[in-house]
């Protein structure tokens, strides 16, 4: 009898486990825009000690911008601002006097900068990452691979390079205004993220030389803002047409 029960119950149990008890029949999708809601007071209480200590530091106005900076376009105002800041740091580095190419990524620029007052918070949101500046010495052929990548997907941004993009390939490449020479070595300033292969920057692997500066990209931006303010200069967004397109 027990055997019989086992025999009958077992498949039954299995069957019930496999059966869907509830069948989805209809779905209705929507979304809420989190805009004009009153904040939850308990959540606010939880946030407030963190916020007040951050605000003290982050609300400091460190620069003024003549207009908003964005990462729209192949050569973008926000990217040029980062490149200017890093170039400023490199130019003031007393133990380094070589001309360099600058390579960073558009995706690493995490927020636009507004027009007018720029706070420390704005710079943190533009560059929240802890990545540091590195100076690589690479072969010309590797730089060529890098320029090819810039033309293929537009993910990387560059400085001190000019070229024309035709069918996603670079033409008339100039480095510091001179003709590009694949047999030469070049200095490339980038972040340790890219130097370690981030964003698939395989061309930076095994460089001839790698110098770690121990300065964060964000700190270079903050230093540059301080420098501008000290010299009573505003951030003036620009693009200079160093990348052209040809059909």
């Amino acid at each position, binding site marked *: 009898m027990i055997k019989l029960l086992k025999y009958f119950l077992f498949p039954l149990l299995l069957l019930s486990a496999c059966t869907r008890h509830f069948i989805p029949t*209809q779905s209705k*999708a929507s979304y809420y825009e989190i805009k004009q809601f*009153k904040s939850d007071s308990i959540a606010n209480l939880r946030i407030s000690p963190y916020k007040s200590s951050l605000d003290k530091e982050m609300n400091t106005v460190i620069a003024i911008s003549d207009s908003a900076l964005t990462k729209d376009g192949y050569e973008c105002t926000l990217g040029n601002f980062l490149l200017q800041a890093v170039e400023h740091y490199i130019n003031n580095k007393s133990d380094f006097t070589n001309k360099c190419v600058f390579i960073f990524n558009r995706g690493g620029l995490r927020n636009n900068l507004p027009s007018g007052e720029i706070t420390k918070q704005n710079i943190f949101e533009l560059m929240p990452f802890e990545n540091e500046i590195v100076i690589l010495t690479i072969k010309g052929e590797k730089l060529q691979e890098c320029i090819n990548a810039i033309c293929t997907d537009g993910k990387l941004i560059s400085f001190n390079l000019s070229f024309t993009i035709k069918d996603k390939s670079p033409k008339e490449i100039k480095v510091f205004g001179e003709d590009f020479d694949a047999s030469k070595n070049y200095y490339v300033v980038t972040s340790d993220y890219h130097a370690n292969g981030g964003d698939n920057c395989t061309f930076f692997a095994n460089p001839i030389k790698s110098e770690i500066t121990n300065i964060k990209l964000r700190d270079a931006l903050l230093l540059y803002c301080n420098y501008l303010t000290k010299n009573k200069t505003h951030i003036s967004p620009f693009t200079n047409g160093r990348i052209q397109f040809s059909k």
Partner: protein
Amino acid sequence: MEEFNFQNRRDFLKYFVGGAVMLSGFNTYSKILLNDKKIKKLTILYTNDQHSRIDPFPANDTKYPNQGGFAKRAALIKQIRKEEENILLLDAGDIFQGTPYFNYYHGELEYKLMSQMGYDATTLGNHDFDMGIDNLITQWPHAGFSFINCNYNFSDTVLNGKIVPHKVFTKGGMKIGVLGVGIELEGLVEKKLYGNVKYNSPLDCANSTAQHLKNNLGCDYIICLSHLGYKYENNKVSDITLASQCKNIDLVIGGHTHTFLDEPVSIANSLGKQVLVTQVGWAGIRLGRIDIYFSENNKKMKIEAGSEKI
């Protein structure tokens, strides 16, 4: 935190009255359905790519002035909990990175607030590794929700045993299976940060996990939390690829590409069955909502996907 001035109050009322009209329509609709005792409703609420946006964007932000904010979302979720019985609150990864809150407090406040809101689960996004896997362990005690991923192998890391490949949530008797998939970390996240986390094919892992959830664990509905990205121009695996090649997944809640989908996209899976793919941008600017009506008998009805802004 935010001044509740007259302008705000007017907008707030307009918003809420509008919302109420919509919701009352919604309720009539659901009442008709729910009068039948065999019909049950599940409300799925979701976010993706919160990126440490604790505070709303400032008023002078170039794109999203005054939008987002954890405390506003907390109030909204509290309100929805009063109205709905069966709620699943989910997130599709990249909770971390983007504001000084993360640089200074390493994600502690994000996890605490999400726990307070009653999040059920999240999956790991690439930026959740931004302070290394050791930081995930440090912040672990603050997270009162599950971390779900089935295509990263954590066995050689400190996260071993902490991240589950899937989880079954029972809501009003319905068994909802949730699995998670993550993007390839190599070339995206520095090796020193993700350490020995090994990446496996998200398609293979998602299919075998979903099959297990359906056939062995008897789930009524299967949700995949994905940090693969909505879709790509090249052949990189995305939510669209996942939806078209899966078998048992009903809904993909995606992230990574910060895509604002006004309504879920319906994709035919490998068996020709419709799978919903959704994503709500980033930074907590939106809270997504999908209400699913389940029938207890086996009568099959047409699944409709409608969408409206509440």
